[in-house]
């Protein structure tokens, strides 16, 4: 070839074996590290299943529908905790969705200058960064005492309803629901904001172009177009609320006695685990593992559903 002498300066023109081996082993390493995700998931499932085996055979499906939890007589049923998990997460979602989506609309439409929107957006993100245990501390010493008179009057006026039938006495389901609202608001707001921002500008222009009012455009065009992302975010928040542990454990009262009343102390699966796992032994550990399995199954279903909804709905709107 031309300029042979110069080409000779490139010592690695032919790739040495070491270089090829590095290339191959790096690829292999990446594959192994990627498959660790699946391995960990499997390990989590197996650990929890193996741990709960003896409780499963002892109590069967009755575990899910009975509410005895008695380490002395060795009787376990997780109904109180399952009920608590479902009720706290759903009610907190009912409060948080309008708040979060409303805030997201406020942050994506030009109601206030960009600077102000950025600041609010940043504050929402920082709220998500505050550790759950700090929110729990705040809930015990600030929020709950402040709410007590409010909850008392709720009991006094609506006490005839089973949901408000008990006298508030500090920790309970209601303050737990409110602290959950605080915890899932940032997720809902952030995801709703992102999906609204992704609505094509042409769609807005088309809506305004035919003379719609601002809120007409929001309700009839922008929200429907962003619905897939918002629904996905809501589902993710539901999963998060179900698994949320520390703040709830600190404020829910950790009572295994079943009560319909939201003002009474209760339990969630996560709070029960946090509260009892450290000191449990024997069948109690196994029963807690069983409860953990139920919680895992619940969050798994919710998360898979969330992914499925996002995929299904985004097909319709893009």
């Amino acid at each position, binding site marked *: 070839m031309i300029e042979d002498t110069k080409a000779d300066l490139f010592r690695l023109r032919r*790739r040495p074996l070491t270089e090829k081996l*590095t*290339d191959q082993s*790096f*690829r292999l390493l990446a*594959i*192994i*590290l*990627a*498959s*660790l*995700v*699946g391995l*960990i*998931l499997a*390990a*989590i499932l197996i*650990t*929890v299943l193996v741990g709960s085996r003896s409780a499963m055979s002892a109590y069967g499906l009755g575990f899910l529908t009975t509410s005895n939890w008695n380490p002395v007589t060795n009787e376990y049923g997780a109904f109180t905790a399952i009920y608590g998990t479902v009720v706290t997460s759903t009610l907190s979602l009912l409060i948080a969705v309008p*708040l*979060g989506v*409303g*805030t997201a*609309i406020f*942050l994506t*439409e030009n109601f206030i200058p960009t600077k102000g929107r950025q600041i609010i957006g940043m504050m*929402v993100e*920082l*709220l998500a*960064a*505050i*550790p*759950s*245990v*700090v*929110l*729990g*501390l*705040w809930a*015990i*010493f*600030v929020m709950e005492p402040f709410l007590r008179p409010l909850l008392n009057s709720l009991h006094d006026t609506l006490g005839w309803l089973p949901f408000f039938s008990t006298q508030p006495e500090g920790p309970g389901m209601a303050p737990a629901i409110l602290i959950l609202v*605080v915890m899932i*608001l*940032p997720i809902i*707001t952030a995801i709703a904001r992102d999906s609204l921002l992704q609505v094509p500008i042409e769609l807005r222009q088309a809506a305004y172009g035919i003379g719609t*009012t*601002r*809120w007409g455009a*929001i309700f009839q065009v922008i929200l429907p177009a962003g619905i897939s992302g918002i629904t996905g975010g809501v589902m993710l928040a539901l999963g998060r609320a179900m*698994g949320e*542990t*520390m703040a709830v454990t*600190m404020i829910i009262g950790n009572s295994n006695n079943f009560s319909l009343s939201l003002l009474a102390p209760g339990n969630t699966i996560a709070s029960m685990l*946090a509260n009892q*796992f450290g000191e449990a032994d024997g069948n109690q550990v196994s029963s*807690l593992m069983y409860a953990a399995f139920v919680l*895992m199954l619940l969050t798994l279903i919710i*998360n898979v559903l969330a*992914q499925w909804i996002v995929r299904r709905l985004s097909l319709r709107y893009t």
Partner: protein
Amino acid sequence: MDSQARPASNSVNRSLHRKPNLPRNRWNVIFTGLAAFFAATVVLPLVLVLAYVVIKGASMMSLTLLSELPPSPGMTGGGIGNAILGTLIVSLIAALIAIPVGVGGGIYLAEYSKGGAFASFVRFGTNVLSGVPSIICGVFVYGLIVATRIFFDQSYSAMAGGIALSVLMLPTIIKTTDEGLKLVPQELRWGAIGVGASKFITITRITLPTAFKPIATGIVLSIARAAGETAPLIFTALFSPFWPEGLFSPIASMSVLIYNFAIMPYDVQIALAWATSFVLVMMILVMNIFARYVGSLNRI
């Protein structure tokens, strides 16, 4: 409204001036007010929590607090030095495990996978893992490591706590690496491969450095989140009233200290819980600000 719908016969109806009394305009004002109110409600808790943490915690800041061991129940004085150190150690262990695994997995997804079944499985698994409640990570590590006494016959240990936190961080790091690498223009990879770079060189010298900003931001944020986690630690790392005694012994951490002390009937402990909250929140806020700073860096 119906008078508007008719062909305009008088000049009033043809006016383009805004009519505030029209139902549609009234609804607009109501909804706008509602949205503003909602936004204020969302921001309010942050302001309140920060205010209380600062009021109750900042006043207690002193060298003693940062450097001494917590007092025994009923005693006064003391500090949270061991918990601060413990949080740093456990987070470091978690980061050392989760960063290589997560970045490696992300590299596989973005650079090697070709959209096959295995890649979809890994992506799906990452999403599922990120949805696993943090308390379950604790239960898992308890069952796998603590109960089996796998490390030198030790049950609760700093190592177990770090591993539990790393499981929590892993999906975030995989996702940010995957997404960060996907932002690198395809042309850049071609450029490197066109001058005879191997895949290994292309990734380590061109694509990874190019995607440094988003990946580093994601990693810092995930460490900040892990540092504040409590649930995976309460029955893996447990707690210790003493200075850390090694990686295979129980260790104190700020988050578990807050949880333990908050439910104690002693005012000294509760005051320490607030002080710890202040230190922890400040640490996490600083890391969040640092992550934003890294994200805004201008690299060549």
